[in-house]
Every structure is written in structure tokens, then in C-alpha cells.
């Protein structure tokens, strides 16, 4: 069974990314790439979102385990685009509109906040023995910390997971995106 705990190296990557805005992109990519090695379910979309090139995403998926990635490169590439669009639209709706560069910086800042919450939630999961597998989060835990970060920013919750269109019925989104994070999450929380 893989060790899902957060290593001191992974913590240091986020600590540095938090305090060094110019290196955020690179350090977030390294953080999520490291989490892929532990089979962290959130790392798939984390890496897809923050990796510096699509070639790198394609290579990582091609060399990875198919039971971990579940679906192939084109699915995760689509998730990357959808998630980026959700974040950019959500930030704009929350009143944080900016030009392309400013939006990119904000998306990275949100990425740091989510990574910090992820680290805390995984560590708490292990210490408190939550769920079936220590350190492996459930869909509920993942959704909750995303909601919290979005609330802090004033981003409406419906921008998390799925399409950014409120008119799309939740049942459709669940069917389409239900496995986005969680085909192999801890079934209990």
C-alpha cells in the first residue's frame, strides 16, 4: 500500500512556492508530480492543471499506471482546460478580473491555497485515522476544502468540479465529472 503522507520535501516545495511568487508555477508542478508517486487521487488534476507543458502531461500519463490515471491523456487535457476556465471565470465573478498575466498569477495563488489545504487535510486524515486508508481523502473531504478555499475568495461553489454552467443539471455533471478526482478515493470520510 503506498504511503500517502506528505513528505517534508513536499511541504518545503509549497512553503517556497508560497513565498516566491515567480517560482510558483514550477514548484506547484513539482509538488503534484511528487504526489503522483504516492498515488494521491487529487494529484492527477493538480498536475494536469499546473504542469508546464502538455508534452510533459502526455509523458507522465503514458509512463504511469492505467489503474491510477483511469482515463487517458485527452481526458486529462480536457480537464485541465475546463478547470482553468472554471477558475478564471470564478475569479472574475468574484470581482478579481484581470488581464491574462494577472489571471495566471491569481490561478497560481489559488493553487497554493488549495495545495496548503490539501497538505493539512491529508495530514489530519492520517493523524485522526479518518476513512479506510490513512492519507487518502474521500470525495467529501476534497470537496469540502475546495469549498472553503472558494468561499474565502468569494468564488461561487458551483465553479468547483464540473462545468461552470449552473444550467447543466448536477446529475449530468456527476455522471461526466464524478470520477474527476475520485474513482479511487477513500470511500469513507
Amino acid at each position, binding site marked *: 500500500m503506498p504511503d500517502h503522507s*506528505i513528505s*517534508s520535501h513536499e*511541504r518545503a516545495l*509549497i*512553503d517556497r512556492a*508560497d*513565498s516566491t511568487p515567480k517560482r510558483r508555477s514550477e514548484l506547484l508542478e513539482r509538488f503534484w508530480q511528487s504526489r503522483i508517486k504516492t498515488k494521491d487521487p487529487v494529484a492527477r488534476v493538480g498536475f494536469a492543471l499546473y504542469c508546464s507543458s502538455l508534452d510533459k502531461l502526455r509523458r507522465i500519463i503514458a509512463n504511469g499506471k492505467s489503474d491510477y490515471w483511469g482515463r487517458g491523456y485527452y481526458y486529462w487535457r480536457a480537464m485541465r482546460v475546463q478547470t482553468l476556465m472554471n477558475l478564471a471565470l470564478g475569479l472574475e465573478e468574484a470581482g*478579481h478580473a484581470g488581464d491574462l498575466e494577472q489571471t495566471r498569477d*491569481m490561478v497560481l*495563488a*489559488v493553487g*497554493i491555497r488549495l495545495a*496548503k489545504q490539501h*497538505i*493539512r487535510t491529508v*495530514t*489530519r486524515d492520517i*493523524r485522526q485515522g479518518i476513512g479506510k486508508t490513512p492519507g487518502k481523502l*474521500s*470525495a*467529501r473531504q476534497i*470537496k*469540502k476544502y475546495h*469549498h*472553503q478555499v472558494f*468561499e*474565502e*475568495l*468569494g468564488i461561487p*461553489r458551483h465553479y468547483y468540479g464540473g462545468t461552470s454552467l449552473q444550467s447543466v443539471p*448536477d446529475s449530468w455533471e*456527476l455522471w461526466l465529472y*464524478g470520477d474527476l478526482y475520485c474513482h479511487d478515493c477513500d*470511500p*469513507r*470520510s
Partner: protein
Amino acid sequence: MAVYAETPVANRLAGTDFCIPDRYAVRLEIREQADDELYDTSPGFDLNAKIHYNEAAKHLDGYVRNVADDGLPQYQTLYLGLRPAPKTESVPSRSVEDPTSLTTLTNTKDLFITDKVPSYLVPTEVLKKTANDNYITWGTCSRTSHHNQPAVYACQRRNLIIDSVAVEYNIHQANLSRHEGIDEFIRQKFESWQCEQSTDG
């Protein structure tokens, strides 16, 4: 016939008399295996709640609404995680062999961290000293400040038991001095969230 007025039954927390009004309810809509009654997979606990920071500030003197430190806001909406409460009657006391080893948490008089130097983003247990000098587990705090900077904590209140519901919420260091007021405020909200019964003939 008794009916539940105003609040839809869909927002009723299973096995409780609480109905979360729509404007506070956060539906999770998660496909989980409902195989363990102790956890929030129980029917009807597919709900959390949130109280907007402006409402919290209106009721709590000095409540800090926004603790932004990176150019983006960090609004202090109270996001309440809800679970069925453990079956034990009260939060058990926590034995502390050497109370002098505890460190008082910044901005508080009655909360203590158990690690002298908490590591970055590692949740550390926080104890609360009760009126009769016992200690109970209050929650956890994590240091969010960088190396060589004054410690700043982000905390999670746990074990707030309101009847048959266990509530947890995040609280930033800036609002820690109001932690008891926040607990009380949440209790009052739950009182107002009792499913109102009316006789309808």
C-alpha cells in the same frame, strides 16, 4: 397533520431536529458508500452549512472578515462541517502530565498547543482548559507562516457538539480571541434551525 414549515425536508439532517435553511445549506452531492453509520455517509448528512462573514461580523464584536495576505481576499465565512455526533455524552477529558509543557495559543487565554514548535502546515493538537482545570481537545492548528517569520496559525475547531451533531469549522488566528463567542453564535444558529413544526389541521 404535522408539517415542517418553510424549510424543505431535503435540508433536514437525518435523525435530528435540524433543518438547514437553503441560504445556509451546502449540498455535497457525493456518491459515497453509505456503509458506516458513524460517518457522514449517513443519509441526510450529505449537507454542510455556511454562515457569511458579514453575518458573523454583525453578531461578533471585532470579528475579522478578511485576513488576506497575498493580494487576494481570504474572507472568513464560517464553513461548518457537519457529522453525526459520537455516541459518548460529552467530549472526554484529556490527561496532561505536565501542563507547563503546553504553550498558550496567540490571542487566547484558554487554548494551548501541544507542540512547542509546530511544523509548517502540520496540524497540531490544541487543548482547551475548562473551568475545573481539566483539558479537552478543542481542535487543531497549523502554522501557515514561513520559516523565520512570526508564527501565524490557521485552526480547525472540532468537537463542537450541538445535540446530536458534531460541528467543525476553520478559524484564523485573527479571530481566535473570539472562539467562545463563535461557538455560541453557531449554537444559536442551530437553535434557529430547529425544524419548525406547525399543526395544520
